[in-house]
């Protein structure tokens, strides 16, 4: 069984209070303790955003010179040519691919080579079920349902910090996502302000109860309950260092008041609190656009605008931490090349994803997108998956987080990389 108690072994430490040189106080104390867990210094931070519902990669990043696509999508196809009446043009990235105009926030990052895009990414398993495809992508084993752990949980384990902090892996969701299933510690927190002992309208009662709980958990004979109890109260104290409700982002950033904006804002808070966060997870919904997905306006446009502006708000808020930060999006599959009868697209295969960070091989659309003629399509209908998602995820994890064990991170994966990261 994995021990997650490394820093607690030092005993009744007087923890908290940010210690020397940006290393949290508890770590300094832990090092000084008799059973030193080894100096834990947060390395880097990986933030993953799961776009649930399957994003239409061909609309997010359109191969706009492709006439097959144009023919297959009479009312959805967009062009980079300026001056089309009543329509914003695509942002021409490289003469072949155009970024959706509602993702204008991404353009400077792409030009500065901070943002990389992988097109034709997807799973080797050709299921077109949301559930199955998400399950496979999050477990990281595309042909095996019974895998007990998620890939991000395994990543947390491979970082080897022995559970030095309760906040090493955090999901901003109400319950733990499949990606974080597993034996390494990970916590789901929808709202940081709720992370406390609560008695509504009775602050003193809550304080007393909190004190009683702390005492009770301190004396229990169950090691698991005792240690976790300790961790919990220490975690509360960590969070109480800052008034989470009164958070002011830096650099005049304003987060969109959306679910994703709220999640990323709280991840930023955790990062700035220096609680040892290394792997974070957030979700974005509404990508299952079977009906009237729209072009430069409409459902899809609003979704990509939210995604890009939220990510950029996060990036700019954390300007001081950018060297340590990589943000990666993922989605379970792409959508049909042809539009359907209701102005939308159906479940397909390849999609695209975005990776933002200083170690990203940015300014490029990686991967292979062949002309979308019928013979090039998967099952005669979908953008073919030309890059295994595990290739990209493992490269990001390897280079950014310094994980070098693909056999554990993605068992049964051949290990081929395509160079989305510099390093």
């Amino acid at each position, binding site marked *: 069984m994995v021990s997650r108690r490394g820093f607690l072994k030092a005993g009744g430490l007087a923890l908290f209070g940010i210690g020397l040189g940006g290393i949290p106080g508890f770590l300094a104390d832990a090092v000084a303790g008799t059973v030193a867990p080894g100096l834990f210094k947060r390395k880097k931070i990986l933030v993953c955003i799961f776009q649930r519902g399957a994003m239409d990669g061909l609309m997010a990043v359109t191969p706009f010179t492709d006439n097959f696509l144009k023919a297959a999508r009479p009312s959805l196809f967009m062009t980079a040519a300026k001056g089309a009446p009543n329509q914003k043009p695509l942002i021409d990235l490289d003469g072949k691919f155009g970024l959706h105009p509602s993702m204008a926030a991404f353009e400077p990052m792409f030009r500065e080579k901070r943002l990389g895009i992988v097109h034709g990414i997807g799973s080797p398993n050709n299921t077109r079920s949301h559930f*199955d495809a998400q399950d496979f992508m999050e477990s990281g084993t595309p042909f095996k349902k*019974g895998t007990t752990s998620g890939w991000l949980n395994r990543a947390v384990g491979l970082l080897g910090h022995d559970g030095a902090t*309760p906040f090493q892996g955090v999901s901003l969701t109400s319950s733990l996502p*499949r990606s974080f299933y597993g034996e390494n510690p990970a916590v789901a927190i929808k709202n940081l302000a709720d992370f406390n002992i609560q*008695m509504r309208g*009775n602050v003193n*009662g809550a304080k007393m*109860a909190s004190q009683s709980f702390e005492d009770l958990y301190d004396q229990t004979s*169950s090691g698991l309950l005792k240690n976790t109890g300790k961790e919990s109260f220490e975690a509360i104290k960590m969070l109480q260092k800052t008034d989470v409700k009164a958070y002011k982002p830096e650099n005049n950033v304003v987060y969109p008041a959306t679910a994703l904006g709220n999640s990323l804002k709280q991840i930023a808070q955790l990062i700035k609190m220096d609680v040892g966060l290394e792997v974070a997870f957030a979700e974005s919904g509404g990508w299952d656009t079977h009906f009237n997905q729209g072009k430069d306006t409409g459902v899809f446009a609003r979704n990509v605008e939210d995604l890009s502006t939220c990510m950029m708000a996060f990036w700019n808020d954390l300007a001081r931490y950018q060297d340590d930060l990589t943000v990666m999006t993922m989605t379970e599959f792409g959508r049909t090349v042809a539009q359907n009868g209701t102005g939308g697209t159906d479940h397909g295969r390849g999609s695209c994803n975005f990776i933002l960070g200083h170690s990203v091989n940015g300014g490029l659309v990686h991967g292979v997108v062949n002309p979308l003629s019928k013979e090039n399509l998967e099952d005669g209908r979908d953008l073919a998956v030309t890059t295994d998602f595990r290739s990209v995820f493992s490269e990001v994890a390897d280079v950014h987080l310094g994980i070098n064990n693909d056999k554990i991170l993605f068992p049964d994966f051949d290990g081929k990389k395509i160079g989305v990261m510099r390093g």
Partner: protein
Amino acid sequence: MKSSVRNFYWSIILFCAAILLSSFVRFVGPASKIAMPYKKAGLTTEQAAAHLLSRFTYGAKPGQVQEVAKMGLEKWLTEQLKGDEKDNTLDDMLTKFDAINMSNTEVENTFPRTPSIRKFAIDEGYINKDSLAKGDRKNEREGLEAYMKANGYRPQQELFRQFFSQKILRAAYSENQLREIMTDFWFNHFNVALNKPQCAAYVPAYERDIIRPNVFGDFQKLLLQTAKSPAMLLYLDNFTSSGNNVPAQDQSMDMMMGANATPAQKKRAMERMEKVKQQAQQKKGQGGLNENYAREVMELHTMGVDGGYTQSDVTQAARVLTGWTIAPMGKIGYGGAVKKMIDRFGESNLQQKGFVFDGDFMFNMNRHDNGEKVVLGHKFPAGGGYDEGVELLKMLAHHASTAKFISKKLAVRFVNDTPPTSLVDKMAKTFSATNGDIKSVLITMVNSPEFWSKDALREKTKSPFELAMSAVRGLDAKIDRPYELYTWINKMGQQMYYYQAPTGFPDNGQYWINTGSLLNRMNFGLALATQRIPGVSLNLAALNNNKEPESAEAALVTYSKIIMPERELTETVARLKPMLNDPNLQHKVATAAEKNNAAVPKPADTTMDMDMKAGRNGKATLGDGRKINQDPVIKQKAGTNTMLAQVVGVIIGSPEFQRK
């Protein structure tokens, strides 16, 4: 003549004796007689009753430990293993949930999935296309609602809420506690999840018809029925799995239509079949073999990951199970194309071809791989049809690895997270000897000293569901809104019926206890005891026969014992005393509670408060803060009572109460 008559009688006598003897052997067989060695383990009858109840119920109700000790543990367990205690109170409560007894077809016709009706709502103009393009979610939602109302459809969420509610009410109030515990166990073992929309609507019937009636019986039956259930067929994709060498279409057509059909009729039918086939393939975007179920049935349902099967066994088993799929149900439910085929050719014609129709299950001969297969060294000759699948599952159910795997899982559930091999071996032996009779395996478990050892007592960590239920039962709470408890259980880290992976929830303390979930357990205790969970009420005074404890300390001791009978609580009480003896803090809490009660009148207007206001025992009111401040004696009492809720909350959230 005479001697032949004598021989005849003799043979009858011998025959009867043989029958008697065999039934006698059965009756006194080691596996079926309950003889629990708790005294040898040094436990009193009360202590043993407390342990037994902690494992085989969702928590002892006040006084239940004494009751069971009095009636005899063996008798109580015998009744529980029958699982047919009268449940009138519960049944009354459940009558208001009209959807929980619906068949899958009724569910399909009442609670359709949104994607399958959204298109109709648009086509029929309930959802305005233009506003849809503008992303007007409100219009979309309202349009959909109007369409559903006009067609008598109801939102699926309503079905699920009823489903959650029945689970909570059964756990809290059923007299057949062990049956509910085992239902939970087997559901988790054969997990399906509401996350997967394709199977979600069939999950309530799955638990009700497949799991609950079979929890004590024959493992093989449970396995076979889950394999054939729509929920499992969809959850693990077997419904889509088809073989490569399906019989030639034209031959089967001849057989189905008979020799009298004209060539033109045959041609039309052929074209129709072809179209159906194409559509089906397009829809799935894939055809052919799907190994998901075949793999998990070995890895998770029977033999276990180290049970000794290979990838080839998985593939071959998947081939055996091709064609195991779902019968068409409902007006707009699954299987429209197949329904047309059945309507056209008739069930009996199809049955002659090897099709099998069994309720919601269908064996589709046209999708079955008819070749020879070898699984675990056992040969399934070509042409085995439906029967070879049944044979395969029986083989898996009786495999030695299965006996071990299931026994260990039961021991993990009921003894501790790492049960001793000696115990698992005994249980596995019974499993094999009885062909997988679950009741016998359970009896072997409780007859073993390992079940009563100090490594078992209080060694399991309650799941969030178990915590919530044991609190509700221990406090005799009244649940009017079970869904409120569902959301709390979710917050504590167990989103019931939504465990995405087919493994089911892990069954160990390490999984349930982490920083976030532990805090929520504490908050749950406080919220429950201070009556801040809407629709869940308690009467703390009644728990102590409306006797007011003499002092704060007495309250602590009394209520700790009521909530956690037969536990060593000295340390818990010692740790909580300082909280009660700080008059300053007490006063602050009381004042804050008063203020809050005044500000939020309704939830504060609790059963307990009302009892207090009624002035029972001539004591002053809790509801009047001024009086409390004016009268030192009353202040003491009232402080105690306000404190009581808080003390109880802390007890529920305490480490001792997280264990069972």
